[in-house]
C-alpha cells in the first residue's frame, strides 16, 4: 500500500489529531509496531502499522487534526515485496494517489490555527465563529469539542416566542366537518359552530344534497337544518347588537313600469316585482359598505354584493344562498338567477359558490301576507332587509291622499358597523331606486367599488 493512514478507531471517530510520532524518515518498521499517538477526542491511542517497511516521509505534522483515512506517512515496503509509488509533494494532507479511496480535503487555516474541514463544517452548521475559539487540542488546535462547547454556550438566548395564531381569521372546523362540507359543496365560512370555541362540527354543516355520500349512517336531515338555524339565530341575537328602521315605499311607479315592460314579453320572460326589490337592495348595498360585508373580529366590508335571498324549504327551514354580483345583473338575468336558485335550493342542489357567505340578505315574506318582517341578521353579515306584503295603502301624494301599492321595508342592522343615519340613508336609497325603476335596468354604470355614498 505504501501509506500509513489515520485509522478509524471507533464508530464515532471522524478525525484524529496527531500527538506524537515515534518514527522518523529512514526508520525501519515491522507489522504491529506502534508508530504514533493519536488523540481521538476521548483519549490518546497508540496506533500501529500493519506492514513491514521503511518510513520514507511523514506527511502530517504533530498537532494536525485530519479526517480518518488521511495519509499520515509513506512507508516504502521492503524491496522483496512491493514497488513504492513516487512521492507526492509534501503539502499537508495532499490528495492521495493511492490508498484510501476518498479525496482528502485540505485543512484550512484561520487566524493562524489549523481547522480541519470537519471542524470547519461543524462550526458553520452550529453558527460558531471558529476564529474566535481557543483550541483545546495540542498546539492550540481547535477540536470538535471546542466548537460544540461554544455552540452550547451561545444557546442561552431563548427562542423567540411565536405570535399567537390570529383569532377569528381561521375557520375552526373538525376534519370530518370539513370533509362533509367538501362532499356537499358547502362553504363553512358563515356556518356557526357548536363545538368548543365555536368549532364547526359535523352536525353544523348545512345539508346540500341527498343521498348522504358520507356513508350508511342515517341522517336526520331536517333535524340538522333546524338545529343549524336555531344555533345560528341564537348566536346572532347573542352577539349582534341589532337596531331596526323601517320605511314605507310607494311601489306605484315601479309596478307600473314593470307591467309595461312585461306586457311585451312571453310569460316565461316576465320579471316579478320581487326582483325589483332585490335589485334595488343590491344596488343600495353596493353603496353602503357599513351594511354590506361581514363581521369577523372587526368590520370587513365586501367589495361586491352577494345578495342572500331567503328561500323557504319544503319540510321546514330556510336557506339563504347568494346571487353573486346581484347589483350588476340586468333584471332579466336576476330574474333567471332567482328562479334557478329557488328551484335548486328546494331540490337541495345548490353549488358551493352559492353557499359562499352572502354579504347582505333579503327576506321577502310578502307572499305570506304579513305587513312587515323584522329580520334576524344572519351572522356574520351586517344587515337584513325585510319586505312585507305589497298592499294598497293610502299615502300622501302631492299633498293629497292617494291609494298606492306600498310595501313596508325594514332594515335590521349591526350597530357595530352602522348607525341609524347610515341605515336611513340605505333605506332611502332603496326607496329612490324603486321610485325610478328604469334606473334598475340596465345595471347602474356609476356604481363605485369603494361604496362611496352618492
Amino acid at each position, binding site marked *: 500500500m505504501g501509506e500509513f493512514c489515520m485509522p478509524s478507531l471507533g464508530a464515532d471517530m471522524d478525525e484524529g489529531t496527531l500527538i506524537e510520532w515515534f518514527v522518523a524518515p529512514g526508520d525501519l518498521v515491522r507489522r504491529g509496531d506502534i508508530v504514533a499517538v493519536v488523540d481521538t477526542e476521548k483519549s490518546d491511542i497508540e496506533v500501529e502499522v500493519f506492514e513491514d517497511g521503511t518510513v520514507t516521509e511523514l506527511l502530517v505534522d504533530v498537532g494536525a487534526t485530519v479526517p480518518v483515512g488521511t495519509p499520515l506517512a509513506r512507508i516504502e515496503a521492503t524491496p522483496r515485496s512491493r514497488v513504492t509509488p513516487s512521492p507526492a509533494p509534501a503539502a499537508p494532507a495532499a490528495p492521495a494517489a493511492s490508498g484510501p479511496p476518498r479525496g482528502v480535503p485540505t485543512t484550512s487555516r484561520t487566524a493562524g490555527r489549523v481547522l480541519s474541514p470537519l471542524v470547519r463544517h461543524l462550526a458553520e452548521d452550529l453558527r460558531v465563529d471558529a476564529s474566535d475559539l481557543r483550541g483545546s487540542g495540542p498546539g492550540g488546535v481547535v477540536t470538535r469539542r471546542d466548537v460544540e462547547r461554544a455552540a452550547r454556550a451561545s444557546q442561552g438566548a431563548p427562542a423567540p416566542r411565536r405570535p399567537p395564531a390570529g383569532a377569528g381569521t381561521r375557520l375552526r372546523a*373538525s*376534519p*370530518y*366537518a*370539513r*370533509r362533509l362540507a367538501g362532499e356537499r359543496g358547502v362553504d363553512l365560512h358563515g356556518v356557526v359552530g*357548536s*363545538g*368548543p370555541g365555536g368549532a364547526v*362540527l*359535523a352536525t353544523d354543516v348545512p345539508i346540500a344534497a341527498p343521498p348522504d355520500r358520507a*356513508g*350508511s*349512517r342515517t341522517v336526520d336531515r331536517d333535524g340538522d337544518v333546524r338545529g343549524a338555524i336555531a344555533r345560528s339565530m341564537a348566536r346572532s341575537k347573542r352577539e349582534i347588537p341589532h337596531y331596526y328602521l323601517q320605511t314605507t315605499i310607494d311601489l306605484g311607479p315601479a309596478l307600473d313600469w314593470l307591467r309595461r315592460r312585461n306586457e311585451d314579453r312571453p310569460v316565461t320572460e316576465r320579471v316579478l316585482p320581487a326582483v325589483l326589490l332585490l335589485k334595488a337592495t343590491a344596488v343600495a348595498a353596493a353603496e353602503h359598505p357599513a351594511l354590506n360585508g361581514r363581521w369577523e373580529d372587526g368590520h370587513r366590508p365586501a367589495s361586491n354584493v352577494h345578495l342572500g335571498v331567503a328561500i323557504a324549504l319544503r319540510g321546514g327551514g330556510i336557506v339563504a344562498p347568494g346571487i353573486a354580483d346581484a347589483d350588476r345583473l340586468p333584471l332579466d338575468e336576476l330574474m333567471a338567477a332567482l328562479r334557478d336558485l329557488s328551484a335548486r335550493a328546494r331540490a337541495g342542489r345548490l353549488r358551493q359558490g352559492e353557499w359562499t357567505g352572502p354579504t347582505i340578505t333579503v327576506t321577502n315574506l310578502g307572499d305570506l301576507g304579513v305587513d312587515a318582517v323584522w329580520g334576524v341578521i344572519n351572522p356574520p353579515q351586517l344587515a337584513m332587509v325585510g319586505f312585507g306584503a305589497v298592499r294598497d295603502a293610502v299615502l300622501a301624494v302631492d299633498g293629497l291622499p292617494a291609494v298606492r301599492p306600498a310595501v313596508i321595508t325594514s332594515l335590521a342592522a349591526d350597530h357595530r358597523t352602522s348607525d341609524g343615519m347610515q341605515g336611513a340613508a340605505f333605506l332611502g336609497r332603496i326607496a329612490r331606486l324603486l321610485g325610478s325603476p328604469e334606473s334598475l335596468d340596465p345595471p347602474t354604470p356609476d356604481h363605485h367599488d369603494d361604496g362611496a355614498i352618492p
Partner: protein
Amino acid sequence: MSTTTYREAMREALRDALQRDERVFLMGEDVGAYGGCFAVSLGLLEEFGPGRVRDTPLSESAFVGAGIGAALGGMRPIVEIMTVNFSLLALDQIMNNAATLLHMSGGQCNVPLVIRMTTGAGRQLAAQHSHSLEGWYAHIPGIRVVTPATIDDARWMLWTALEDPDPVLVFEHGGLYGTEGELDESLGPVDLDRAAVRRAGTDVSIITYGGTLAMALDAAARLAERGVDAEVIDLRTLRPLDDETVLGSVARTHRAVIVDEGWRSGSISAELSARITEHAFYDLDAPVGRVCSAEVPMPYARHLEQAALPGVDGVLRAVEELGLRG
C-alpha cells in the same frame, strides 16, 4: 357452551396444551406444588409430573432465559412470570434475547416461547404490585403481546400462541380470574390478529383491552341510557394492533375514546391516538379522548387507588367532552 371462570378456562388451556404437544412444558414460580399463585395451574403438577410442570427458584432472568434457550432447542415452553411487576427482572432476556434473536441471527433462530404474566391493579397491592406494563411491552418489535379479556379468549388464545414461531407475551389481568361466563367449547384456536367489536354502536368508538373491557361495556350501557350509542372494541392484541378494525370503527362513529389502565404518558393509548390521527384524521369530529391511570405510583388506600384507575365516570366524562351529551 358451558359456564366457567376465566381462571378455569386458562387452566383448561394449559392442560390442553400439555396434553396435545409433548414439547410443551410449564415453568415458573409456584406453578407446581403451590398450584399457581392465582390457582391457574392447580392440579397440573399432579396430572403431568414435575418434568412438565416445573417450579423454578426466584430467578426471573434465568428461567425466562432458560425458556428462550429451551425454545431454541426445540421445546415449546410456557414460562409463567408471576406478575408483570417481576418481569422487569427478566426484561433483558425478553428484550435483548427473545425479541431480537430472530433478527440478530438473520432469520436462523426462532424463539417459539410463550410467557404468561398477571397484570393490573385494583386490589390495593400498592406501587410495586400494581403495574400495567403490557402497553410498554407492545413497544418492542419482535414479540407479540396479547391481552385476553374474555373467557373464550382465555381458553383459546393460548393454543394459537403456542403455534407461533415467535415469542408471545400473554397478559392476564388479575381482576379477571374470578369472572364467570359462558365458554364456547367449539371455538378452537382463535386468531390473534384481530380486535373484536364487543358492542356495536354509532356515536363513539370506545377502544380498550383486557381488564378494562368490562368497565367499558358498563359505561356503554350507561351511555345508552343517555341516548349515546357507543361501540366498544376489545383490542385483544396490543402488538400488532388491528388498525383495520379500529380505523373502520372511527370512520363510522367519528369519535374515539381509548381506555387504558397504563399510565397516560407514552402509553398504548397514545399510540392508538396517534394512529387514529394519522389515518382517520378526516373522519374525526372531535379530538381522540383517553381515559388512563393517573400518573402516580399506585397508592394503597382504596379510595385513592380507585381514583387513580380508569372508571365508568371517567369514560362518561371523556365521552361528554367530545360533545356527546345524548
